[in-house]
């Protein structure tokens, strides 16, 4: 049996804020297998972003262990590709110079980095905008640029924190299908945070449900839907049935 790409064992994390202790995560255990697309859903404030900050290595857990490819690294930063909740493009850099950032940090020569990025621009719908500043882009384009930057970190694991959370419903659906297309090409391991039940089901192989604060894993659902996913799936009875299971786990009565 292959080792999980990512494993959390009994991870807890609290924040101390003006003498107040905020418990963000409590005894969270989960694993993600290589090539798997796992979605994590939970109410706002359930510690989803904290979970990613822990995996990335920006925070250390109070208790428990985080393993990447079976190893508990002392310093984890730079080992997974992380796309934060905000697109966080550098406003003073053109789209092209933004997306090559991870290559630049690794010391890839600029001309080589540009070449790699240019190759990807059409797939990300950014062709013709390589010289534009982020302020000139629409929300959807900014998200795609941020995602391209994430992909160019060339890590096996992608952590995406509500990448489509701020987009309008139509753009969001387009980008969901587009992301699945990109994923079917690269087949990286994806962990995708969302607070949208439909999105969690439509995208994921498995859905992990977190409780309200402090975040705990209250349910894991292996999604029973065929791939490739098609929009029509949403209208199927199986989809509704699984949606109901997730809503119930979230404590929303149906």
């Amino acid at each position, binding site marked *: 049996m292959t080792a999980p790409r990512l494993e959390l064992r009994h991870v807890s994390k609290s924040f101390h804020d003006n003498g107040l202790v905020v418990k963000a995560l409590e005894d969270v255990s989960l694993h993600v297998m290589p090539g798997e697309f796992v979605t994590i859903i939970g109410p706002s404030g359930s510690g989803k972003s904290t979970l990613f900050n822990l995996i990335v290595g*920006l925070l250390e857990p109070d208790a428990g262990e985080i393993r990447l490819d079976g190893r508990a690294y002392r310093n984890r930063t730079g080992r997974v590709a*992380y796309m934060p909740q905000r697109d*966080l493009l*550098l406003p003073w850099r053109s789209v092209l110079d933004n997306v090559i*950032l991870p290559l630049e940090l690794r010391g890839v020569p600029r001309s080589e980095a540009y070449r790699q990025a240019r190759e990807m621009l059409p797939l990300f719908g950014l062709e013709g905008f390589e010289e534009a500043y982020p*302020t000139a882009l*629409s929300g959807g384009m900014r998200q795609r640029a941020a995602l391209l930057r994430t992909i160019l970190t060339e890590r096996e694991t992608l952590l995406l924190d509500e990448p489509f959370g701020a987009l309008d419903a139509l753009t969001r659906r*387009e980008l969901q299908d*587009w992301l699945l297309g990109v994923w079917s090409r690269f087949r990286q391991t994806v962990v995708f945070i969302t607070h949208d039940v439909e999105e969690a089901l439509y995208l994921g192989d498995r859905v992990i449900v977190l409780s309200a604060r402090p975040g705990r894993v209250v349910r894991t659902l292996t999604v029973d839907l065929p791939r490739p996913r098609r929009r029509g799936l949403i209208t199927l009875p199986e989809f509704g049935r699984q949606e109901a299971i997730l809503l119930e786990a979230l404590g929303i009565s149906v």
Partner: protein
Amino acid sequence: MNFEATPTAPASISPHRRPRWIREAFPPALLIGFVVLSWQVVAERSGLPAFILPSPAQVWRAGWETRDLLGPAIGTTMLETAVGLVIALLLAVAIAAMMDFSPFLRRALYPILVASQTVQILAIAPLLIIWFGFGLLPKVIIVVLVCFFPMAVSTTDGLTSADPDLIALLRSMGATRAQVWRIVRLPAALPSFFSGLRVAVTYSVVGATIGEWVGGSAGLGLYMLRSKNALATDQVFVAMLITTLLSIGLFVLVYLIERAALPWYYSAQRAEQWEETGIY
């Protein structure tokens, strides 16, 4: 692939009715014209002697007649200003970087920085003359003193203004501290640095002329002092106007450099947003 309606290419921002610089320059030009005209009328009609209120025409004539004196005077003052500004700039950036690097140095230097600005230039200027003579050096020091503070403070603020989430993102990619500095913190500091520089250059020329006034062997300040002693009020006005024009010239120069250096900050789009919100 069919994405949402893409915005038009950034190059094709809608053209304005009139070029912007005309719209910008017209109101102040109108006001200045009005003031000069009123001044001329008042000076002529009031019958006040020229040593109390010279008319703009008299000021113009005085300037033209003393042009042989003015040329070298302007040269001296500009040299002092330029040297002082460059030193102040290097010093300010170096100190801002040091304060950013070490909280200890920050705590040690910040009060001294503030104190350097509250020093009475008029009190310290004669001392500097006593210590360093009548040459270039004391004037340069005065320019450095008045220009250094706004640049150091705004650069320090700028370095801490970077978005913490951006820094976290870079760290998540495994960036080193030096990389974070170069890629995020330095560029983020540039707009504040430039606003400090803009303030500094407007002080700089006045700083140099104060030094010359107190103890100079050349320069616009000396010209001003001699004119005042001779009750040549029209010449005093000449020196004042030239000082002002030099300051404005420097300000515009910095502004142009800033526009060229920070195209992302002054994107046409942002200017339009300002205009819409009425800030611009």
